């Protein structure tokens, strides 16, 4: 989990090419989409691909996406939960 909270913001900032955002400064609980970071619905879809590619976790509905992408923490928890289930 601590690892995910560290590597997710790096991957997200790089993938979405977010200007002037320091990955280390994103609060794990701040609003991920539609807030200060400038992340929108298209970015969410790009993140869906990233999460599936790097963690094997599929997020295939907008309803699920809205929950999972609330914050870095909800995203990390979802990945951990799902990949845990996969490995188990």
């Amino acid at each position, binding site marked *: 989990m601590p690892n995910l909270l560290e590597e997710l913001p790096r991957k997200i900032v790089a993938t979405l*090419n977010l*200007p002037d955002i320091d990955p280390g400064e994103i609060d794990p609980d701040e609003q991920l989409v539609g807030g200060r970071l*400038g992340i929108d*619905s*298209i*970015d969410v*879809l*790009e993140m869906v*691909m990233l999460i*599936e590619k790097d963690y094997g976790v599929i997020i295939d509905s907008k309803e699920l996406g809205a929950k999972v992408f609330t914050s870095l923490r909800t995203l990390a928890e979802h990945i951990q939960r799902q990949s845990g289930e996969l490995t188990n």
Partner: protein
Amino acid sequence: MSTVPVCIAGMGLICAAGDESERVFGTLAAGRSALAPPHHFHPRVTPHLPVGEVAQATPPGDLPRTHWLARSAAKQAMSGAAAGPDAIVLGVTTGGMARTEGLLAAGVTDPVAYARHAVGSVAQDLVAQTGCRGPVLTISTACSSGAVALHLAAQLIRHGLCQRVLAGGVDSLCRLTYYGFKSLQLIDPAGARPLCAERGGMSVAEGAGLLLLDDSPPRPESVALLGGGLSCDAYHGAKPHPEGLGAAAAMRAALNEAGLRLDQIDYVNLHGTGTPDNDRAEAQALHRLAPTGDLPPLSSIKGAVGHSLAAAGAIEAVIAALVVHQQHLPPNTGCSDPDPELAISIDPSPRSRPIQRVLSNSFGFGGNNAALVIGRPIASASVPPADMPCFTIRGYAALSGSGGSEATLKALLAGAPVGGRADLAKISAGLPAGLVRRLKRLPRMALALTQACGCGPDGAPPGAVYLGTGWGALSETNDFLNRLFESEERFPSPMDFIGSVHNAAAGQVALWTGATGENLTTTCPYAAFEQALMSAHLLQQNGSSLVLMGVDEAHPQLRPKLDPDAVAGAPPAEGGGALRLEAGAGQEAPYLRLLGLDYCRHGATLLERDLSERDLSERDLSERDLSERDLSERDLLARLARTHALASASQRYGLVLAGLPASCRALAERQLRVWRAATGFDGPLIDYRRHTGDFATAAALAAVWAAAMVDPQRRDPSVVGDPFPKAILILGLGAVVSAMEVVPMAEVP
């Protein structure tokens, strides 16, 4: 009052529901869905999604599927015609992509294999099929392309430029669109269910719809194009305006042109893709036009045949005409439980009157909206369109491998060549980082040009946007396909897909500047900029403001495979030019206008033959072409005469900028000799591609160069003395012959 009706003289249709109009209409009327997993192409990721696929396989040979579909519809549409069309206007987004994907995945580098890749090559192919000898336009405005093409074609006839125009749209299924829409989570795994409460997206499809339009006087039993309207949401790259503002504006414009109100429409053929956002926005737009809440009967056919992208608007125009002929409304197949939120009824209500007029909607990525009104001609008086305007030049900008506008123009005015690849960081330097973070090369160039010509948000934002591009966003296309192949088709990039459509750059310009008027992207390997200018002449009203640009990128991997000029050895060059224009010519500033745009029939296949007959050098082949084919001097003169650049050229023009593309240089040189001999023009002449570099939209850079030469306000007189005092003629030669003029301020037409 209404605009002049333009009669439908022939129709051609091929889609998932059949390969001929009556059969398709029968399938639709029966409420059958033709959506099924793909059969002719094989996505690696399973389960396969349902698509609207044409049943027949592409005949063996080199012809890409899109071209084959277009030929099939063209043959039907032209079957009763005594002569070929005067012009072709085709909406296309995929071109030869279905074939190109396979070639790229297999690592094929031989350019011969890619000769029919270009989106513009489908219309070129129809030239040879139909014997068309006039202008050939390709419109690439995503899912509204087919409807936009028909609207432009009608304008060509209304303005008296053509008597018969073959127009419509075509697209074939390919991995780019199948996986692209999948990555956007816009595909319903159960098949499209337009207007359904449970709808989960669209079904990607293929097909072609073509109409032969002509100038015959309408009779009561005719079915005609009565009006068309275009708009741009300027809201989002891939989502419609949530309240349907742009859609309503396009419908309103189409109804106005037809001289009708919504309550005089007997059936609305919805865009109705089945995506939650589209259907909601379209319903809102309709309610906006009908405040009383009474909507005409309506349905979407996309639950039956899917969404065939650029073909959809044209296929549905054919359906609209059949609805009027057969007095039968197609049901809204696929919807079992109408969405109450939309507040529209899809029950086939009993009709109290015959079906006379149909409104057909088409909306696309980039917020491109189009609406057409099709039906029986209206008895009331119709008004011919106002004369086509000239365009007063209010601003201009250039971009090239030599740098931004200032550096590029300084070099050109000093007689120095520009060329090579531009520095992406420099291009983007003046653009907001948040704006361009998802944009690669072409859209950044378009935005930089927009800003530099004074159309940015802090300048004078334009009402309309016209953009010509030979090859579109090659970086996004390349990156999308690479990632698709590398991930075994598992991880396509939604960002790259949205960016890969030809009209993405013009959509970004609208988004940034708030331009909600017409938004057109035209494409052709040689004259995309001239096509954009011609479209502006056909659609803009006096007093309207617009930005016109031509732009292309030199992609290191794709250019050598795709671009015939690169294949002919031209070094990489890219960039383009933009002009901030006002429709109408005044006394106080120079103006630009297109004099003519014509297609050389045998120029069309020059590349293909050049490449397939390797034993001959290009020069030999072109010269042989000239002697053996119909490019006799007389034909050539007739073609040039139609550019109106022939008469009194010596007196009128102080300078000629002539574009001789590397891929058809021998042909172009010959044309130029013929032109000089015919006009007696002995003034200065610049072989402009030697200065601008050889790329598809070099003509845009030439036009801006000419604008700078005649500009009385030019800030840097140190480069060249006084502004050039006489008109400048810009000739495009080779496979496409075009002529534009830039006229100094003293002269008014």
